[in-house]
């Protein structure tokens, strides 16, 4: 047992190291790029005083290492700084929006995960027949569409023409009752579901097919086990790990989909906040949001990693 714990600890440490490097990358990416940052933010017509003030505020005159350590220290103690454009506290703004984003992603995941596993199993069960073929055709189509295209098509049909749900999430209030909240984000949930469903189904299908084609399943079938016993004793335990892996990777993918979908439906979440402030060139906000998105993404990938190690004894002993 000791070896598992140490392998897990090692992975977690690697994840933390990765996060540290990512923070460095995000910081360096917004600092060392060519051009005068202050000039970029204020435009060509800025007065010299305004430029000097902004440079002071950005701390451009201080050495980069010192600024990075300040910023990192702030991150670690949970202080994300203040927004340049509005002077607002970033923690406060993000706290509210992060909750909204997680609410949206949570409901999309609740629908997408069981559906994807079910359809993936269906595709395996009827392999190369029409259910499998139509599932892979749909998959190909949704993979080829950017999130905003699916978003607008569904918004137009379901929201505007049929008027089943509210077309945008403008009216979303976090303190309204659950049903009202769900109505205003019904179409965004559907869009996100479609976006991750395709990937998840494809990967679930591949993962389970991989297990079903292995030699031990054939052995189990040949020694006369019932179909149920083959699946419950041999196929199921071996496919948990790849399937959980698939789920985690797609939840990570959801994090990116959320950015675009929030902009399409004017939903007050993290994604919209990030895009808004990229346009306004509000660097502290962009850094903070970028770091949070990256942390969630890396965290989910790390969980996928840990689960596969726990479920697959062969991975417990690294080469």
């Amino acid at each position, binding site marked *: 047992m000791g070896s598992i714990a140490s392998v897990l600890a090692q992975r977690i440490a690697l994840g933390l190291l990765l996060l540290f490097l990512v923070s460095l990358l995000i910081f360096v990416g917004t600092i060392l*790029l060519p051009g005068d940052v202050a000039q970029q933010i204020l435009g060509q017509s800025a007065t010299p005083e305004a430029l000097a003030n902004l440079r002071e505020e950005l701390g451009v005159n201080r050495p980069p290492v010192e600024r990075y350590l300040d910023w990192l220290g702030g991150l670690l103690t949970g202080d994300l700084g203040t927004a340049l454009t509005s002077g607002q506290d970033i923690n406060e703004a993000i706290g509210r929006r992060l909750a909204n984003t997680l609410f949206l992603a949570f409901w999309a995941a609740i629908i997408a995960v069981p559906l994807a596993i079910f359809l993936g199993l269906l595709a395996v069960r009827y392999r190369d027949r029409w259910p499998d073929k139509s599932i892979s055709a749909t998959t190909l189509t949704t993979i080829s*569409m*950017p999130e905003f295209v699916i978003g607008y098509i569904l918004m137009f049909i379901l929201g*505007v023409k049929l008027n089943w749900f509210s077309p945008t999430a403008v009216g979303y209030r976090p303190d309204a009752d659950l049903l009202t909240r769900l109505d205003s984000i019904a179409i965004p949930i559907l869009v996100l579901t479609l976006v991750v469903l395709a990937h998840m189904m494809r990967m679930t299908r591949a993962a389970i097919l991989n297990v079903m084609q292995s030699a031990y399943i054939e052995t189990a079938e040949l020694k006369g086990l019932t179909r149920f016993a083959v699946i419950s004793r041999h196929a199921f335990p071996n496919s948990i790990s790849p399937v959980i892996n698939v789920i985690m990777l797609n939840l990570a993918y959801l994090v990116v989909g959320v950015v675009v979908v929030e902009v399409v439906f004017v939903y007050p979440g993290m994604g919209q906040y990030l895009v808004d402030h990229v346009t306004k060139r509000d660097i502290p906000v962009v850094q903070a949001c970028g770091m949070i998105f990256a942390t969630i*993404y890396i965290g989910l990938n790390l969980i996928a990693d840990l689960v596969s190690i726990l479920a697959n004894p062969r991975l417990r002993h690294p080469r």
Partner: protein
Amino acid sequence: MFVRIPFAAIIGICFTLSFFLIALFAPLIAPYGYDEVVSNGFWEPATSEFLLGTDGIGRDLLSRMIYGLRTTIWIATLATILSFTTGSVLGFLAAVMGGWIDQALSRFVDLLMSIPSLIFALVILSITPITILILILVMGLLDATRVYRLARAVAVDINVMDYVEAAKLRGENRWWIIFREILPNALSPLVAEMGLRFIFAVLFISTLSFLGLGIQPPQADLGGIVKENAEGLTYGIGAALYPAITIAILAISVNLVADWILSRTTSLKGGRG
């Protein structure tokens, strides 16, 4: 040798070809200029004069979309070329050199791939001026990471083949080995991957423009045209759907072609997604 081409691939090839031809001859095909205001009304329905109607400020939607398609394809092609040359040259180099160069490059690529491309692109675009050159550089270099992984994986396999050993013993230098021994043998999986990278570039630039961080008006690519007309959707005007669906059809057709090429080179599976 006669190859039977599956029906889906034929459709894909036809559509892809016509999209590229339209993009190439856009000024000859488009009835009006891309930012020429041709009408006083806005979001007028389709007529024989304006085949898809007009956009929010009275420009011919069809003409604007034809030029938009040209911009999208042009940028996506350049980004794909950039990601391919950088990704495959570095990938081959890492495979041939091995040692610390391989380690450094591979770990750096791991790091870049640990953040979603869109988020990283947004972080960079918050500070750089948004020009076409910078968009191509950002997209091309972020995407080069995936090409790098594939190229390196393929080249590592080829690098231990007898003919490469023979070339090394002959005393050929590294560039000979990369370009004359490895490249010809790695070409088919890389070509299949190229289609997927192109689609990714199309979706990426469309998304960036849609978010207002890509091509800046009055110029527009397909994603930008969706953004311009999106407001009309809530009033029941479907103008934004035409460019949106065009993006989808473009991506699906290239995908059909790429899938077909991929299924013909199944011996080496490329990293998808």
